């Protein structure tokens, strides 16, 4: 370190040539590292060293030690040799994107800032393999960008030791497998994004993936691969979709799988779910909706999605592979504009997966319901004695017995002639006539009959007990018969009105 002189002048004019010779000589030894001047054509400013797009074919030597950010993007660097960045003890960000890198020599990042380096961009290069030695000196790495290379294989220990890794991008490579087992909660506790999209993965090690921490599964991007369509793979993505994972939500259409692994047979499995309906869905998570209904009973299914608003359209895909839109199919299915589907009378062949699709201008969502129609003989425990039928039966039997008593038992008294009340037919009041006719209709068929019986309601404006000269007790006053209906009419009408009012007064009038 410096002595106590108040100022130092390192490269004073005339001595600069001599110094540069010394610098060169010192550099040729393995140690020590000297403060480097700014490489030619690069731009050195405060803690940034910018050497982008200079046609460089290797990393410049003797870089300033104060560099925190080193930008070597858009050059033609072919490989990283050992100690390429030695002496850069403050280096935090290293950009090497858009070069021609094919290999990284062991020790490339030796004698650099060690765990200070947190962002390494190697995207858009020609790397074809990730070896264990590549990142072994970068224990502090947080973001590793390797997209758009030609990587075919990642060694199982390539990422070990990267304890601070948060985001790793491997998309747009040629990967056919990936060591998921090397990533665990204790080895990569911060890893929240692992992008393996746009590769050639044929089959996923589902057991290893399920063991990944949930926080990582949420950021695991596997879309646009060469996945074989099979049920277990579908279940994994379904579960992620139901948990609302961003990896599914933002790339729904890009999740493809190949039927029987044939390249041209890719299907977007979030859009065409019926291919997977034959999968044994009992294995799926508890969030799957399933409904049972008895054969012959109606069933109403709702379409529950997060889409709302006027421009949302719905349609259902039913087990018979029909697409149903409102108002339905005019036979067995009715569909409402709000997306609900009614099976008018469930038949056994209506069992299966019902998929509702809700679509607005920008997004679509779907929901599945598993419907099971239980056949008749399969009703399970026979129902206990049906009280409704019992009551009705009792009612009918009682009525029959009463009628038998009335008509089949001998009558002791001859029928007495009753004075018929004179009916005033000139009255044009339709109401009165209606009342009169109502009364006479009550009078005529049978002698004392109770209008009361089990299950029959008593209307409050008819006080019919025994059929004597009509005395209507309304408003507490005894009224004479129909002959004097003219006078009594207002009261009667008032009484009717009152009774109507009393019927309706405690029920508020509901306007549609």
């Amino acid at each position, binding site marked *: 370190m410096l002595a106590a002189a108040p100022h130092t002048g390192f490269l004073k004019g005339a001595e600069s040539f001599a110094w540069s010779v010394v610098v060169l000589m010192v550099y040729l030894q393995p140690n020590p590292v000297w403060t480097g001047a700014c490489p030619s054509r690069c731009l050195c400013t*405060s803690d*940034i060293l*910018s050497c982008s797009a200079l046609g460089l074919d290797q990393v410049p030597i003797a870089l300033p030690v104060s560099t925190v950010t080193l930008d070597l993007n858009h050059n033609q660097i072919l490989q990283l040799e050992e100690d390429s960045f030695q002496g850069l003890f403050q280096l935090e960000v290293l950009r090497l994107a858009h070069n021609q890198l094919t290999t990284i020599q062991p020790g490339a990042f030796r004698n650099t800032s060690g765990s200070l380096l947190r962002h390494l961009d190697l995207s858009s290069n020609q790397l074809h393999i990730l070896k264990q030695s590549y990142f072994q000196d970068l224990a502090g790495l947080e973001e590793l960008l390797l997209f758009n290379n030609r990587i075919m294989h990642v060694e199982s220990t390539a990422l070990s030791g990267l304890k601070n890794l948060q985001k790793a991008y491997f998309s747009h490579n040629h990967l056919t497998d990936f060591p998921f087992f090397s990533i665990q909660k204790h080895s990569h506790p911060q890893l929240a994004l692992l992008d393996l999209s746009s590769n050639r993965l044929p089959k996923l090690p589902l057991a290893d993936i399920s063991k990944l921490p949930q926080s990582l599964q949420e950021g695991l991007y596997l879309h646009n691969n060469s996945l074989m369509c099979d049920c277990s793979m579908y279940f994994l993505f379904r579960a992620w979709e139901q948990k609302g994972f961003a990896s599914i939500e933002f790339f729904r259409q890009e999740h493809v799988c190949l039927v029987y692994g044939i390249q041209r047979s890719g299907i977007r499995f979030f859009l065409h779910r019926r291919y997977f309906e034959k999968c044994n869905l009992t294995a799926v998570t508890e969030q799957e909706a399933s409904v049972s209904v008895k054969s012959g009973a109606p069933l109403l299914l709702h379409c529950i999605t997060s889409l709302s608003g006027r421009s949302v359209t719905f349609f259902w895909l039913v087990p018979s592979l029909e697409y149903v839109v409102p108002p339905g199919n005019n036979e067995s299915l009715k569909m409402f504009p709000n997306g609900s589907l009614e099976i008018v009378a469930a038949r056994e062949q209506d069992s299966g997966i019902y998929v509702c699709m809700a679509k607005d201008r920008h997004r679509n969502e779907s929901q599945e319901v598993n419907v099971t129609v239980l056949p008749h003989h399969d009703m399970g425990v026979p129902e206990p004695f049906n009280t409704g039928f019992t009551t009705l039966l009792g009612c009918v039997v009682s009525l029959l017995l009463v009628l038998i008593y009335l008509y089949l038992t001998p009558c002791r008294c001859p029928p007495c002639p009753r004075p018929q009340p004179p009916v005033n037919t000139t009255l044009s009041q339709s109401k009165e006539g209606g009342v009169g006719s109502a009364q006479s209709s009550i009078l005529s068929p049978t002698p004392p009959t109770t209008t009361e019986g089990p299950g029959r309601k008593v209307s409050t404006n008819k006080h019919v007990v025994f059929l004597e000269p009509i005395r209507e007790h309304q408003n507490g006053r005894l009224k004479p018969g129909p002959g004097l209906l003219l006078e009594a009419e207002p009261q009667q009408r008032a009484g009717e009105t009152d009774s109507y009012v009393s019927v309706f007064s405690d029920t508020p009038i509901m306007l549609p």
Partner: protein
Amino acid sequence: MLCVCASDIISCSKVGLTNVTLDLPQHTVVLDLSFNSITELYAAWTPKHLNRLQTMLLNNNGLTFLSSEAFVHVKKLRYLDLSYNGLILLDEFIFEPLEHLEVLWLFKNRISQIDRYAFSTMGALQKLYMSHNQISRFPLEVLKERSKEDTFKLLDVSSNKIKVLPVQELQTMRAWIKNGVYFHNNPLTCSCELYNLVASWHLRELNSAFDFAGNHTCGVSGKQHEKILNLNCSEVKILIKEAYLEQTLVLDCDTKHKYMEKTWVLPGNIPVSSANDSAIVDHGGKDDPRDSFHSSTASLPLEHVERGAEAGGFAFGDAAMQKIKDQLEQNGGLNPIGEKDEEWLRVSRKR
């Protein structure tokens, strides 16, 4: 146009883009538009709000015009690279929406005019790079608004056309701010005031002065270019405190990094502990010395101080160990500032 979409990164670097409108997905976090031909940027470059966009790279585009609405849809930006373009002036509106911006790269443009309110709404700004432009006025307002806050780290106005530095105001700032104020390679006017500043910063080994030691130059009437540190001015020492017996002296521990654990050592290498009643250490009102990122002051009643002795403040931390030695001068005795080699500790991420 062959952009590469890697989950939340969209890379459209060097794909021949001109002034286009991009319909970008809402989940985009990083957008690389570097090395294209986007010469003008209006609000319409993205029709939708991109609420997740944190990093935007627009360097090397020949960009000459930024409308006042250019960044209205990307309010959550934290990192913006506008370097290597042709911007000429910065008005008060361009960066107004960017209240979360932390790092702004503006170097290698043609900026000659900066509105005084150009950066006033950027409350989260930590690093502002404006070197290699045509700036003639030192933007002191950038520092003054932020010197009270803990987050601002770096202002780079080196390699510009600045003639006058606000020396007085700069000297009143904390060391960790001075550490990040880079002004080398400017046509400054020589003065002993300027020399004092540069020399004291150099003595303190502040990055801004030390890393570019040979580039601090000044001129007299714009002609000669002399190295500031070669000027014939009186010698500069870091800190001299003069006091008399029975007086209480307050010494400040002004470190060039924040978040450093500070301890004090009395003359004769006696550490100051709370049990030691000869000196009281005040860690800015907090109990844990590691919390005292602003200051640490030690009050020394002077009857215990020997003649001409040294007291030292040691600042430990996550960064390299550094020392600040205060000299206590009594009756004219002067001790040279000696510095021992200290063990260099690993630098950690958190500054």
